[in-house]
């Protein structure tokens, strides 16, 4: 087992996890548009077809319905397909197969068939891309029983969670925050160690307020915590990482301590996944809350084309302001 000596980016961690698992499980295969020679439009599969051959890394015809439907068929046959969709905005034609079949094959057949597939979805905005390349549409999946929904925010968590997703015997939607694909590097030992698919990660301890977020905005949220610390406000930061199943206990424990919660996500506000977290707070943490819950989110509009997109996305300043409102309220 090779050890990783140099720090790597999030996208490199993904490549590393894919390579590890392909080397160790011959049933794992990759399919998607341009995943072969080209190594994917984000280079997540760079070098994998050269290394594992074109029977393990397959370019598909240009049709997302095809990718999803073939994956269900492959998985029902005991293969472990890792399907790549090029951008979040192209995932919609896959939903029928994901919702009606991937998520239900096991329960439909009382366990006779199952669907151990992973759908990799480069996710979110902020990269100055064309329309439909910047969607934060995780809420499409979070109300669907039978799925797991994962959204890592660091190279190490991307590596460990992707390994877990591939090994999981059921379908996993693995969304990747493309804005931070190459934002920074860290050491990610290539040791094949998976991370659990049902826990939130506390990235920073704090006592005055709990900041809950996921994906690329973990960065802004941590920066907000820094800014708040400068003002003497101690913020705990939680990276949800796995949205479904949600580890609400970790959030609850934090809020028991802090009494305040600000949820940050870049998806549109209404019925975004932040709503579920706020709802569970209203159900289970009411007596702990010293102030109303706040959500700092994208507006209820499609993310604008790139000249304006940064005005759409939550910013460090907006997060700080929400925390201060929360503190003033309580």
């Amino acid at each position, binding site marked *: 087992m090779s050890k990783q000596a140099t720090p790597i980016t999030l996208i490199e961690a993904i490549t590393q996890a894919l390579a590890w698992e392909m080397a160790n499980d011959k049933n794992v295969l990759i399919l998607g548009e341009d995943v072969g020679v080209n190594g994917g439009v984000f280079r997540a599969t760079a070098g994998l077809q050269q290394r594992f051959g074109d029977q393990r890394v397959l370019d598909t015809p240009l049709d997302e319905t095809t990718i999803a439907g073939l994956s269900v068929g492959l998985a029902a046959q005991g293969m472990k397909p890792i399907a790549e969709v090029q951008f979040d905005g192209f995932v919609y034609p896959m939903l029928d197969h994901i919702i009606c079949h991937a998520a239900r094959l096991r329960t439909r*057949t*009382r366990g006779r*068939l199952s669907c151990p597939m992973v759908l990799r979805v480069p996710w979110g905005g902020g990269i100055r891309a064309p329309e439909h390349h910047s969607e934060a549409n995780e809420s499409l999946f979070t109300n669907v029983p039978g799925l797991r929904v994962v959204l890592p925010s660091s190279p190490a968590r991307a590596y460990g969670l992707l390994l877990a997703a591939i090994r999981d015997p059921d379908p996993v939607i693995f969304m990747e925050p493309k804005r931070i694909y190459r934002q920074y590097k860290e050491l990610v030992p290539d040791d094949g160690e998976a991370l659990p698919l049902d826990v939130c990660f506390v990235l920073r301890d704090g006592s005055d307020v709990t900041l809950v977020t996921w994906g690329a905005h973990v960065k802004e949220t941590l920066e907000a915590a820094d800014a708040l610390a400068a003002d003497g406000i101690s913020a705990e930061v939680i990276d949800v990482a796995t949205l479904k199943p949600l580890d609400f206990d970790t959030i609850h424990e934090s809020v028991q301590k802090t009494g305040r919660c600000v949820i940050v996500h870049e998806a549109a506000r209404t019925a975004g996944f932040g709503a579920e977290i706020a709802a569970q707070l209203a159900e289970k943490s009411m007596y702990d809350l010293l102030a109303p819950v706040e959500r700092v989110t994208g507006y209820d509009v499609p993310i604008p084309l790139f000249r304006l997109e940064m005005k759409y996305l939550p910013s460090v300043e907006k997060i700080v302001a929400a925390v201060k409102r929360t503190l003033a309220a309580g």
Partner: protein
Amino acid sequence: MTTVASFEIDYLQYLAPDGKPLHKTMPRFAKDSKNLVELYKQMLLVRTFDSKSVALQRTGKLGTYASCLGHEAAHIGIGSAMRPEDVFAPSYREYGAQFMRGVQPREVLMYWGGDERGSDFAVPRQDFAWCVPIGTQCLHAAGAALAFKLRGEKRVAVACVGDGGSSKADTYAAINSAGAYNLPFVLCIINNQWAISVPRSAQTGAKTLAQKGIAGGLFCIQVDGNDIIAVRAAMDEALARARAGNGGSVIELVTYRLGDHTTADDARRYRGEAEVKAAWEREPLIRLRAWLVGQKVWDDEREAEWKIECGKRIDTEVDAYLASRTQPLESMFDYLYAELPHDVAAQRAQALAWEARKP
């Protein structure tokens, strides 16, 4: 202008509606009349099953049910041509094909009776379950075929879809990917002329449904779906070609839906009696029976005996279905994931506690 590609759609039929042979020779398997007798018996069995199922629904003992009346040659022809190790992806009414593969009538009844256990076939373990979202099964079959190809297995995936389903985007996607990857894949388009109330003519401007396969570079043929000899011959050839790695096929089976779409439908609202009456003259059992009787391998006595046997077999199945108990509440949780996530596990506990509550 030069011609860069040309295509023909052939039509295959061996027996006329009255059972007269249309060609001098029969395909190999049909030369042994034992084979045909066996197929005929299976067609009668599934017809017995079908009428019993409709009766069960009418008396409130079954949910909505989709009849296979008139499709017996198509379904039995498809199922009988496949090997056990092949994989079948049905839509919802191809019981004949499924019985040939080992699915039990009681499983079909469980399914339409609102019980997931119907899809847990004792045999064949790898076949897909009934597929309600029209056409999606075609891509699952293509995916299974891709698995066979990647693993170097000599197996074939067969999907059935209707004339209505031939319009579905998934059906095209399956055809196209089967061609792009040269998959061991056979798509049977069962053209029974109706998609609920929408006639074949309104589905598409294509002259045949077989030609859908041209869009993906597959072999295409149209067969008389009421002539089981033609169905078997076309299937045998397509399966052999696929198994040999020589490409996928689209077979259009032209037949007729003699009954309502399902028991929830009333076809008199949208189609005339004359059409149905005419279709009864082309239905699949008459002609094969006539041929077999002419060959002196079948007669009224054997038919009567076999019908009694069919009745018995189906009664046993119906009894087994009717005796089945509803699954326990927790069954709705227990097969969703290999291991239940903590949040759903908590709901399961809650649900059980609720069931167990004292009123």
